[in-house]
C-alpha cells in the first residue's frame, strides 16, 4: 500500500472561540492531484495553515511525509497561498533566492534553480527587475516558481489560476502536470470545477468545517449519482436551504 504524503486524522480547529474545522480526516497520496473544495469560509485555508504549522490544531494529528510539519521541516513543501504576494520593491531573482534559502536551499542552488525556472516561463529577462514592475500574470508565475523551488514532495496550490489569462493558465497547468508525473503530490484548491474534472484524481468537499464528500472522483460521482463535480458541489451547498425549505 502506498504511504500517504499527507495524513490528517481527527483534526479540529477552534480560533478565538469559533469552531472552524470539525473532526476532519483525509489523506493525500504521492503523485496525485487532490482537489480540496469548499466555498469561502468553509475552513480550507485554515486546514492548510494548520497542516503547515502556521496554526496549531485544537485536536487531531496532521502529518506531512510521516511527521508534523514545522518551518524547519517545510523544505519539501511548496505553497502558493490564496493571499499571496511578493516583496514589491525587491528584484525577482533576489526574491526567489531568498525564498529558496528559507526552504533550506544553499544560496547557489537556489540561484541556479530560480534562473532555470525563469527561463522555463520566459521571464529570464526580468530577473533583475523589481517585482512591482511586473504584470499580474508575470508576478503569479514568479510566485509559482517560489512554490516549486527546492524539489517539493508536496505542492499546495490555492486558486493558482485566479486572474491568469488562458495562455498562462495553460502554462501553469502544464507545470502541475509535469510535477505530478515526477511523483509530486498536489493539493489543488479551486472554485473552477472544470479544472477539478481535468486534473483531480481524488477530492474532498468541505462545508462548515466538515467533510461532505471524499474519495476518488469516480467514487464521489457514483455516491452522489451524478456525472458532474459541479452538480455535486452545488447539491452539497444547497442541502441547508433544502432542509430549511422543508
Amino acid at each position: 500500500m502506498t504511504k500517504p504524503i499527507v495524513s490528517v486524522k481527527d483534526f479540529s480547529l477552534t480560533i478565538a472561540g469559533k469552531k472552524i474545522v470539525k473532526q476532519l480526516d483525509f489523506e493525500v497520496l504521492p503523485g496525485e492531484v487532490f482537489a480540496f473544495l469548499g466555498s469561502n469560509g468553509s475552513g480550507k485555508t485554515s486546514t492548510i495553515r494548520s497542516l503547515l504549522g502556521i496554526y496549531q490544531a485544537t485536536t487531531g494529528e496532521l502529518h506531512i511525509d510521516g511527521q508534523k510539519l514545522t518551518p524547519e521541516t517545510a523544505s519539501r513543501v511548496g505553497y502558493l497561498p490564496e493571499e499571496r504576494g511578493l516583496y514589491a520593491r525587491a528584484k525577482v531573482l533576489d526574491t526567489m533566492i531568498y525564498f529558496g534559502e528559507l526552504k533550506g536551499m544553499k544560496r547557489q542552488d537556489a540561484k541556479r534553480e530560480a534562473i532555470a525556472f525563469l527561463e522555463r516561463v520566459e521571464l529570464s529577462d526580468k530577473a533583475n527587475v523589481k517585482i512591482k514592475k511586473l504584470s499580474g500574470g508575470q508576478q503569479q508565475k514568479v510566485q509559482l516558481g517560489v512554490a516549486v523551488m527546492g524539489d517539493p514532495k508536496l505542492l499546495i496550490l490555492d486558486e493558482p489560476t485566479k486572474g491568469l489569462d488562458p495562455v498562462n493558465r495553460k502554462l501553469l497547468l502544464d507545470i502541475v502536470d509535469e510535477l505530478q508525473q515526477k511523483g509530486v503530490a498536489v493539493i489543488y484548491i479551486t472554485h473552477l470545477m472544470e479544472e477539478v474534472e481535468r486534473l483531480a484524481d481524488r477530492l474532498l468537499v468541505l462545508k462548515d468545517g466538515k467533510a461532505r464528500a471524499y474519495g476518488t472522483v469516480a467514487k464521489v460521482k457514483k455516491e452522489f449519482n451524478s456525472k458532474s463535480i459541479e452538480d455535486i458541489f452545488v447539491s452539497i451547498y444547497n442541502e441547508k436551504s433544502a432542509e430549511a425549505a422543508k
Partner: protein
Amino acid sequence: MSKLRSVIRHEYMTIIRQPSFWISMVAFPIIFGAIFGLNYFSNTSGTARIEEVAKNLENVAIVDESELISEDVVTGAGLELYPSSEKERLQQSVQDGDVEALVVYPENITKDRAYLVYLASPDFSTSSGVGSLADTILETSLYLPLGDQDVIALAQQGASSEQVIYDNGRETAGIYEYIVPGFFLVLFYIVFLFSIGYMLTSVSDEKENRSMEMVLTYVKSRDLIMGKLLAVTLVTFTQLAFFAVLGLIALLVARSLGNELNLPLDIQVSELVFDPLTIAFALGFLVVGFLLFAGLMTTVAAISPSSKEANNFSVVFYLAPWIPFWFIMPILTDPENPVVRFLTYFPLTSPVVALVRNTIGNMSTLETAFALVVMTIFMVLSIAIAVRAFSRGALEFSQTIKLSSILKK
C-alpha cells in the same frame, strides 16, 4: 540559524537598498547645517542692519522726565536732549514726519520700567534701530556713575562662574561628567528618529504585499521577528557609522583648513570624563529602550491590517519619547517628585528619563540598576507581545486585531 541569517540579510538589504534610506541620511546633516547656517546668517545680518540703522539715526529727539539720562551720552550719540515742555510739539513733529522718532523716558520709569517711543514710519528696521539706540542711551546713562570702564563692562556683561562640585566628598569634573553619558541620549533620539520606523514598515509592508503567509510557512514567527529586530539593529549601526564617518570627514576638512576643533561652551575634549559604570548604564538604557520601542512598533504593525493604519496607530509611540521634555525641570532638579519617579519607570518615557537622570547623576547606582531591570522586563514583554500579536495578526488582512484576542489562548 541559517534561516535567521537569511532573514537578517534580506531585511537589512531591503532597507539599505532603498534610495529613501540614503536620501534621509544625507539630507539630515545638510538640512540641519542649512537651517543652522541660515539662522546664524539671518540673525547676524539682522543685528548688523539694526546697528547700522541705529548708527545713522540723527533726527531723533530725546525727552527725559526721569532725570536719569546723561546729556553727555545723548550728545555723544549725535542727538539732542529736550526738556519735558517740548514733548507735545515733538510728538506732533513726529506725526507730521518732520522728526524721525521721539524717545520719552517718563518720570516713573524706575517703577514702570517702560518708556515711550514715537515713530514717523512703520519701517521695522527703523523701529528696531530706535529701540536699540534708546536702550543703549538708558543703559549707558545708568552705568556712567560707576566711572571705571572695566567696572561698567563687568556690570553690563556680568562674570562667568567656575564651579567646584563635590559628590560625597569627591571633587567632580562638573559638566565634563555629563557630556559622554549625555551623548547616549542624543544617540537614542537619532536611533529613534531614523530606525524605529523600519520595524513598522518591515512588518506592515510584508502584510500589505501578502508575502507573509509564504514566509511563515518556512520561518517561525519568533525567528522572523528576531531576524527583523537584528536587521534593524544592524541598520542602526550602519547609520551611526555613516554619521561617524561624516563627522570625521568634517573634522579632517576643518583641520586641513587650519581650524581648531571648537566644541560649544569652550568644552575641552581632553577634560571629558569616561566613567565606565555610567557609560554601561547609558548603553544599557539605549539598547533596551530601542528594543522596547521596536517591539511596540512591531505589535502596532502586526495588529493593523494596512501600513496606513499602522502609521496612524504608531503616532502615540512616536510622541512618547518627547513627553519628558514637559517635565524636564522636575526631572533635573527634583528626583524625589512622584511624577519623576513614575516617568522613570513608565515604559514609554523610561528610556529618555533614565538616560537624562543617569547623565546628571541624580539616581543612585541601585536605583539606576533597578530602572534598567524594570525597563528590560518591559522590553521582554513588548517583544513577547509583538511575537504573539504577529502570530495572531500576521495573516489578518482585513481587520485590526483586538488586544483581547492577542492575550487569549
